């Protein structure tokens, strides 16, 4: 079967509009949303209204309000398109439980908001609270960011138990029995794939945004396509999807969700997935941090019992375990768990009790670095000692710890130079802290518009103060550029960083520890080179393992 294309992308609908005036990102978002609605309305014509938005409005693509139009986000209509679904209708009797979905789908209009590229270029608008409590909280967070972190850690202690205990396995069938979360619904497995259906692989991603995990997810899309399958890529997080235009997604059938989709997708029936399984010869499923897909793996396996299902996890979140725990819960529906560090593999086996033969440890080498050719970069006499932070300005990356470290190192007139490279949702808070600490002139700020290579080519040490990590790609990149790394002891960082350059993840101890290590490295070039060599050796050892790319390429060759 030939897959229809619109603007060179696989599309499950016909459209007469040439979609002029839209950027590549906007077109892909739109085509993705229309794919979803074409699946949900087989053989029908739909009038699709597009609405404008502002800095605060996120794309509305597939959520239940896109069917009934009942969202305050749909303020001003800018365009109406007519599409005709190329999806064939399934011949089967609907279950009574599908009535809600059927009523939603029965409308002939759809309502979408595609955010413009100008919104993506800005940080997300987060109007600060203007009441007294909000103002005081903001001031406290700016003046004492680390105490705010400490308080937050205490608050999150209740989630710790989840990290040290085995997650209960999902009992999918029981969910539909009396007292289960899906009581009253029935499981209706998908029908057979149509004759001559295109071979495809379903890939679930978190979103199309920048990040180490996403780079690997994009890589798997590329490998799937190059292996001769149609990648069907769905995401389950609201996002502007700044990276949806990446070349890895060329030729992929895109389905970027906006949430919630609860009403349109009936438990046990799974209208979207059942249509995909019928229209395409799905040969496997890959999950990258996509809870929606995790929740439906059991249904997929029930529909296609022999289907290979693999997931890929990177990091055990200290808040309830995150995706590795989600993965463990549905492990019975997963044929292989890919992890990127020995530490996470150990957690999966020892804590979660997953059989060793289901775990594949394959690091993410080769995504942004070439494992060979690395050389230590000595500091020239004319260069000020440069300390760099590279990462999103997000809670996980602890940029506030870096700013406090700068304050500590800047205090005694050490003459060091500091670069803070990245942007993100906490940039407003970071601005407040820098302002409150009087460090506006002391820190060179760089957005992601500047290449990481440029910053690493100037740095003498990379500081990773994260609250939480897997094994950061930035660590591998820095070593590749001849720059040693000092890090908090989180995730699998200890697989690369020696104990002498690892500090506690407690924020106050992290600042004290990093301050001492950085000062020592600034004063002793030999020690700095020794640290790099030890990290380089550990990196080589890690990358001597089969890389994730090599393993996945072999794996998919069997599909």
């Amino acid at each position, binding site marked *: 079967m030939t897959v229809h294309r619109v603007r060179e992308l696989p599309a499950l609908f016909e459209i007469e509009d040439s979609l002029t005036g839209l950027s590549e990102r906007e077109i892909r978002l739109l085509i993705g949303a229309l794919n979803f609605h074409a699946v949900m309305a087989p053989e029908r014509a739909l009038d699709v209204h597009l609405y404008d938005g502002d800095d605060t409005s996120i794309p509305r693509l597939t959520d239940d309000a896109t069917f009934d139009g009942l969202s305050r986000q749909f303020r001003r209509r800018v365009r*109406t398109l007519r599409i005709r679904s190329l999806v064939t209708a399934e011949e089967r009797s609907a279950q009574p439980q599908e009535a809600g979905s059927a009523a939603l789908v029965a409308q002939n209009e759809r309502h979408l908001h595609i955010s413009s590229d100008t919104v993506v270029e800005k940080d997300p608008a987060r109007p600060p609270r203007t009441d007294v409590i909000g103002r005081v909280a903001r001031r406290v967070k700016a003046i004492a960011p680390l105490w705010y972190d400490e308080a937050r850690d205490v608050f999150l202690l209740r989630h710790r138990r989840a990290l040290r205990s085995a997650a209960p396995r999902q009992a999918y069938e029981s969910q539909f029995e009396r007292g289960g979360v899906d009581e009253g619904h029935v499981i209706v497995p998908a029908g057979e794939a149509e004759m001559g259906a295109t071979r495809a692989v379903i890939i679930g991603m978190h979103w199309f945004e920048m990040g180490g995990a996403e780079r690997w997810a994009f890589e798997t899309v590329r490998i799937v396509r190059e292996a001769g399958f149609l990648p069907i890529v769905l995401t389950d997080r609201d996002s502007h999807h700044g990276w949806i235009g990446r070349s890895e997604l060329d030729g992929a059938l895109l389905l970027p969700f906006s949430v919630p989709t609860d009403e349109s997708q009936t438990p046990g029936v799974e209208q979207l997935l059942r249509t995909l399984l019928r229209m395409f010869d799905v040969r496997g499923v890959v999950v990258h941090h996509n809870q929606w897909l995790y929740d439906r793996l059991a249904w997929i396996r029930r529909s296609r019992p022999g289907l290979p299902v693999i997931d890929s996890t990177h990091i055990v979140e200290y808040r309830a375990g995150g995706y590795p725990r989600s993965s463990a819960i549905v492990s019975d529906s997963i044929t292989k768990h890919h992890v990127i560090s020995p530490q996470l593999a150990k957690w999966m086996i020892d804590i979660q009790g997953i059989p060793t033969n289901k775990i594949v440890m394959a690091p993410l080498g080769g995504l942004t670095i070439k494992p060979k050719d690395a050389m230590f970069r000595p500091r020239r006499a004319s260069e000020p000692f440069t300390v760099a932070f590279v990462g999103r300005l997000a809670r996980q990356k602890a940029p506030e710890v870096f700013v406090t470290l700068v304050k500590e190192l800047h205090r005694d007139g050490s003459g060091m130079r500091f670069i803070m490279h990245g942007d993100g949702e906490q940039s407003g808070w970071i601005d407040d802290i820098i302002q409150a600490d009087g460090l506006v002139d002391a820190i060179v700020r760089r957005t992601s518009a500047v290449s990481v290579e440029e910053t690493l080519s100037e740095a003498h040490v990379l500081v990773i103060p994260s609250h939480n990590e897997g094994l950061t790609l930035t660590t591998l990149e820095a070593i590749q550029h001849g720059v040693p790394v000092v890090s908090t002891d989180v995730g699998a960082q200890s697989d690369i960083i020696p104990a002498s350059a690892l500090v506690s993840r407690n924020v106050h101890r992290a600042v004290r520890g990093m301050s001492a290590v950085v000062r020592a490295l600034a004063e002793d070039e030999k020690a700095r080179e020794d640290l790099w060599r030890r990290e380089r050796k550990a990196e080589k050892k890690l990358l001597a393992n089969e890389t994730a790319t090599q393993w996945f390429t072999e794996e998919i060759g069997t599909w």
Partner: protein
Amino acid sequence: MVSATAAAVVVTFNRLEKLKSVVASIENQTHPVSTLFVINNASTDATGEYLASLETSVPLVVVTMEENLGGAGGFAEGMRRGYASGADHVWIMDDDCYPEAGALEALLRGFDEAVSELGGEVPFACSTVKFTDGSICEMNNPVPTWDWGRLLVKGQQNVMVTACSFVSVLIPRWAIAEYGLPYAEYFIWFDDREYTLRVTARCPGVQVLDSVVVHDMGDNRGVNFSMVDRKNFWKFSYGVRNEASWQLHHRGLLYFLEFGARLVVSFHRGRVPFDLRVKLLGRWLRGITFNPRIPHVDDVS
């Protein structure tokens, strides 16, 4: 720029013959409506049968309410439906309002002209409401702003207003998204005044003078609190409670007290029967605890 669409909303209750004229008037518009929503407020006459077999030249959606929710509930439901249809504007009216053929076209043109002069926050455009004899309809005169002639001197046919009744009002979807829907709990009376005052918080609306509708209301008289009698008491009962609630919760205690004093004076002047006065003052006090929440299109029902 896309050409503007408008969904018409007609709320009806037991006025079948008038409703037929309203539907015909809407079908006859020079700017066709995108959808006609008829909200049948649980009519007990033959309205249901008529609507069940009705075929119109414009897309028609009949919504039959399980119970009579009053004009307020009917308009709230109709506006929600009109918004959900994707129309750029919702055009609302009662079942005794006959728009002239060019009424909607003039409203859309007048609205756009007002926007070009006042900016994008113009929250509504309403029609000139005539009685069946061609005179002005006493009950449906909008409240002008102090600078009501600002657009007239620019050559427009628009008068700036802050409040009007729900007899041919064009409301842009952004205003519904931002300000919400009328209070269904009001049931009848003051729902239109409250809503139009709510949406004119930042910018006035306009009355488009060459958009004309006929209000077939039987008796062309204005309404005030000296006119209470046993027959119309039930309507005043809602009106007093609704306005008292609004005065107290949206303006302040002094306005609430002033409204109470105004009621007393009006009852005295109109020689309203004493027992009705007592009951209505009870409704005035009811306004203290009656304070509905603003409904929005995405409220979960």
